[in-house]
């Protein structure tokens, strides 16, 4: 704790609540964290409760990560992620876009893994309102969101399904990787979210995508067999508390079980319309095993598919949780924890459909 933060803290505490209204929730959490670190070293449950988590969540994090890493995770969730963007080669070369942004005083840092990814280290402008943004030269996107499309690795001539598509961060990335060739069928159930999907597709210059507003569980109505499918399912979001602190309290265990059933049914349908030897990438921004390994485990029992290795850093999928012993090959899936990756939390699995 340095003197500066002590002074800021003192000022904030002495001013009226009106002043605090000007600060967002995030800052308040940070102040809480500074306050906490001034006092005795809390145990993980006390810290969890001070930071506003429902107790059941802390129990589960400990089951997944142990006490000391749980502390790291929930402390990390009080910080802010570096802003990041994906440069869009459908609109401009990476070099040109980079040059234009640098000219505006926006500082970018390359990501060693993906040539299209950049962290914003400094920006004098709101990065989501520049004429370059409006011309579709880049997408605002957390750096870990680039993994699922990259792992799916769509090819130019293929028929790709994106079965939970809005607002289209990943659809537009898939189109970029396909160089606007082949076809993407993007499904989205919500009319409102279809609007933002359409808007992002146009802004980013995506030509090869047809959007259908429908329940992806009816995908068999297409009478098509997809080469590859991306399934970025709706989830409880416990991996992105860092961007949505309300999630500390907003979901119950019952909600998580409800998501599980929904995710299994979406994945079951998607596999039914996947070609033999076709590949499917399943992902969530949740850390809950019920939405992740347990979904895959259910599917491995009933569908003729196998898990594929996905050479990505991060922790292997969990095979023991509470009193459950899961298939050993679930270690082929990956968990990207926020505190380990300095990015959004993700779970990613790649399934391949076997020969009949």
């Amino acid at each position, binding site marked *: 704790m340095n003197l500066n933060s002590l002074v800021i803290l003192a000022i904030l505490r002495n001013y009226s609540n009106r002043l605090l209204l000007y600060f967002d929730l995030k800052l308040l959490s940070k102040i809480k964290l500074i306050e906490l670190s001034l006092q005795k070293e809390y145990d993980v449950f006390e810290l969890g409760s001070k930071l506003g988590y429902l107790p059941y969540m802390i129990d589960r994090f400990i089951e997944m990560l142990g006490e000391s890493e749980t502390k790291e995770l929930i402390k990390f969730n009080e910080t802010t992620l570096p802003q990041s963007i994906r440069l869009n080669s459908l609109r401009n070369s990476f070099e040109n876009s980079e040059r234009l942004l640098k000219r505006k005083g926006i500082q970018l840092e390359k990501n060693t893994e993906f040539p299209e990814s950049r962290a914003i280290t400094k920006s004098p402008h709101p990065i989501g309102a520049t*004429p370059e943004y409006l011309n579709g030269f880049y997408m605002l996107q957390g750096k870990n969101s680039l993994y699922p499309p990259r792992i799916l690795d769509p090819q130019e001539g293929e028929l790709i399904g994106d079965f939970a598509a809005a607002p289209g961060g990943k659809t537009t990335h898939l189109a970029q990787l396909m160089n606007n060739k082949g*076809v993407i069928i993007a499904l989205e159930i919500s009319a409102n979210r279809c609007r933002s999907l359409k808007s992002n597709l146009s802004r980013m*210059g995506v030509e*090869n995508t047809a959007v259908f507003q429908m329940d992806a569980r009816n995908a068999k109505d297409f009478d098509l067999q997809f080469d590859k499918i991306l399934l970025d399912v709706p989830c409880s979001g416990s991996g992105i508390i860092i961007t949505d602190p309300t999630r500390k309290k907003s979901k119950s265990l019952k909600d998580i079980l409800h998501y599980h059933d929904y995710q299994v049914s979406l994945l079951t349908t998607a596999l039914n319309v996947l070609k033999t030897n076709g590949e499917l990438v399943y992902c969530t921004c949740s850390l809950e095993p019920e939405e992740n390994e347990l979904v895959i485990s259910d599917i491995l029992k009933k569908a003729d598919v196998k898990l594929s290795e996905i050479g990505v850093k991060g922790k292997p999928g969990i095979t023991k949780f509470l009193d459950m012993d899961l298939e050993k090959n679930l270690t082929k899936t990956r968990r990207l924890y926020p505190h380990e990756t300095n990015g959004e939390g993700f779970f990613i699995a790649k399934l391949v459909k076997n020969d009949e």
Partner: protein
Amino acid sequence: MNKPTFRIRTKEENKLIMETLEADFGTNVLVVFKEYDFWIKEGKVKEVFTVPKKSSDLITKISILEPYSAGIPIGSISSNSFHLEIEGANIISNYTSKKIIVKTVQFLYGKPIFKENITKYEENFDKNDQIIVIGENKLLYGVGRAEISSRELSSLKENTIVIKGSRKKPLDVGWYLRGGS
């Protein structure tokens, strides 16, 4: 069965779109639509999409499900005229010199372009012509219709409106911030 609201263009619509593009932006722009079909979304106005042949063939085949959208929206048809919109302008902008370069970003807020905002124009234009609007930074700002002809420009006051803006229509890229879709 209900009439589809997302359907391939009729012959007449195709003719209207191609003839308008050619008349306003020159023959060169037609080549960019060679490997594409136009599709129409019926609504208050008819939205026009340009769809690559491969996607077009596929969605034609999937006749029992109707797309929400496909390809890129390029403009709209109303009162029997075709009006180019942002992404249509983006697609053809390298194939036409029907452009004005402006020194203001006001157009991105749906505001008009005044005579004093114009840095230069690459080709003469007539009243009611469609013109692509580019910033001095060479970035696309949008498209609009001329309120006056370029021949009249020299005799008019600096605050004369040359192109009207619109907050409600997808004519400038600021539309994407106004929740446009």
